[in-house]
């Protein structure tokens, strides 16, 4: 699968302009960058810098106003809506700040959701349930399967969302401020999951955050400002969430 040099994501001069009343808003003013397989890219920048818009475009949730975006070698602008849906279903997992779980729906049914739309290889209801339970177990929530989102803590909801994102074994995981609504300890837990996904399964991760310390968990840090990339460098001093969790488990402090 891993093809070395070939960029999984190749964005060339991407712009995004929102037609607002009065002056148009330029969210992205020409972003060019490549992301290779297995990278854990942290995108940081103040709010309004265009980092979320960039992630939405990479995740095929939104379309650029101009520019070329090659995903796994295919030009996304050539793809039909059905093909984009299939890409989101099979190759991409999303984790959002606001969790975006279906309300009044049990955790396991939320996790099952991507399999319901796996049209090219249908899965029986029993198999769906089995895989969803396995995914929940992987994030330590097997005993919360029948709980509804409003019966779960923020951290638990985010872990349900991660289990959902990973159910179809995607090649990429896009996370938009995944720790924004979580306390610091839970944030580290989520980062631990991400780092293990990168290290153990080679999943490409794009993490959007406005907190520089969270960005430190990534293997590459890209800074956005006013719709442009202002810096892009590998992170040599990567924080290791697993180590931090062990340290916290020993000490009394919640603060990391």
């Amino acid at each position, binding site marked *: 699968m891993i093809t070395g040099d070939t960029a999984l994501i190749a964005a060339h001069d991407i712009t995004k302009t929102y037609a607002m009343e009065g002056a148009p808003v330029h969210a992205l003013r020409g972003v060019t960058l490549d992301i290779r397989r297995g990278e854990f890219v942290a995108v940081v920048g103040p709010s309004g810098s265009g980092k979320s818009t960039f992630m*939405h475009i990479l*995740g095929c*949730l*939104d*379309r650029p106003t101009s520019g070329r975006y090659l995903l796994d070698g295919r030009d996304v602008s050539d793809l039909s*809506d*059905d093909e984009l*849906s*299939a890409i*989101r*279903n*099979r190759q991409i997992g*999303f984790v*959002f700040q606001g969790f*975006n*779980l*279906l*309300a*009044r*729906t049990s955790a396991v*049914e939320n996790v099952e*959701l*991507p399999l*319901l*739309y*796996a*049209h090219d290889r*249908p899965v029986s*209801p029993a198999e769906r349930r089995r895989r969803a339970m396995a995914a929940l177990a992987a994030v330590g929530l097997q005993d919360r399967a029948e709980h509804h989102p409003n019966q779960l803590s923020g951290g638990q909801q985010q872990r349900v969302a991660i289990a*959902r994102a990973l159910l*179809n074994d995607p090649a990429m995981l896009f996370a938009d401020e995944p720790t924004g609504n979580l306390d610091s300890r839970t944030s580290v837990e989520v980062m631990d999951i991400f780092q293990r996904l990168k290290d153990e399964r080679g999943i490409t991760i794009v993490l959007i955050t406005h907190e520089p310390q969270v960005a430190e968990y990534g293997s590459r840090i890209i800074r956005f400002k006013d719709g442009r990339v202002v810096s892009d460098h590998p992170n040599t001093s990567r924080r290791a969430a697993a180590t931090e969790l062990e340290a916290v488990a020993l000490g009394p402090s919640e603060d990391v």
Partner: protein
Amino acid sequence: MSTRSTLSISLRALRRNRLQTVLTITGMTIGVAAVLTMIAIGSGAETAIEDQIRAAGMNLIVVTAGNYKVKSTEDFGGGAVEPSAALRRNDEPVVRAAIWVPPTQTKVRVAFHPEDDPMEKHNHPTAKQRLGDSEAGLGSAATLTAADAEAIRGLDGVQYVAEGLHQNVHVKAGDKRWFTRLHGTDERLPLIRRAWTFGSGRFFSAREQSRAEQVAVLGAVAAQRVFGDANAVGREVALWNQPFRIVGVVSTTSWMVAPAAGDDQFDAVYIPFSTVHRLLNLSKLNDITITAASTGDVSRVMGEVTKLLRARHNIGEDKPDDFTVTTQARQALAKGGMRPDVARAVVGNVGGLEKVTLEQLGKTLDRATRTMTALLAGIAAVSLLVGGIGIMNVMLLSVTERTREIGIRRAVGARARDVRSQFVIEAVALSLAGGIAGVIVGLLAARALSQYLRWSTTISPSAVLLSVGVAAAVGIFFGWYPAKQAARLDPIQSLRYE
């Protein structure tokens, strides 16, 4: 995606959004039920008005035994003529005079009855009974038989035929006794008396008729006199000291013929004419009541009946009828304030009289029906509009609230068409449930209304189809359209939707 998995997604979504589901179904139910009830009341009113007018005898033809008819060779046969024929005979004035004056000195017209003249006897099955019938007069002459009625049934354009034998009887039950009219008739009489309703029980059956059973139906007034407010059905009364079982009590919804003591319809007792024949050893009929299938056809049917009976009774060309064919309109005139001889003269000389009356009644009926149809269409349109807007609102509210759900589904890989079919299936399921519930509630409401307001209601299959169809169309459209719009957006727009 398979239909089954879309179906399960939809049903799961409906279960999840229980409050919305209940609200939508309730809205749908109220919409459909309101439309249905309004249509039921409206068309019930329409039917009621038609019934009232029919109850007044629009298409009624009565053949009475005997004949008090002016003896004339040129105008026999109860003579309603078709308007075209009447127009061709424009040398004859329609009304010659308010009081009859002989048109020529040579043709003398006199009131005539065959029973008055022994020389008028001719070959007839009931000839033997005739001489013994001391009360022979109009209606009691023994010239009509059940076979005559049966033959009339075979005529073209005849809708229903009911035999009639009338007597005055004492109805006895215990120590109560009531002197009233007895009508020996056919089980089809209720079809002719359209405004009849059976508060309890039923009319006697064809089987009871053919076996000449001793069963009786009481008019509401007679039942009240004999049994008070107690239910008469199943009780026994004595007629001619013979036991009769009461099978029904008849009343009416018509305001034109309200039941009253002394009237002919509800201060009365009805039994099979075959039973009268058996018990009293008779074979004659007093009269035969006929309805024409179409009100415009009454004159032709009258002519046919006259021709048929004259042939059956072997009446020669130069002899007058031994029966009288008349319409309710003509009878009403004869029963009116005019002196009998004057009325007789008018009836005998104004050829197109019943035609004129019928045409006026017909026009009234047409106008009433047109007005009611327009009213009904208006009521249905307004109800459908109101119901439709209600359903539209609930559907729009539900879909708008669920735009985020659409965004989430799209983000995890649902295609636009997956979302559309999910929402369409949801809307169809809601519409079906709401539609069925609405029909049930509408039927119950209509029934309750007709019971408590004593107003007859009619729910036709087309009203059900119309109300459910429009409600479902509105529900499905406003379930599908916003979902289609939301599904067309880039997923992020649905996700960001507040």
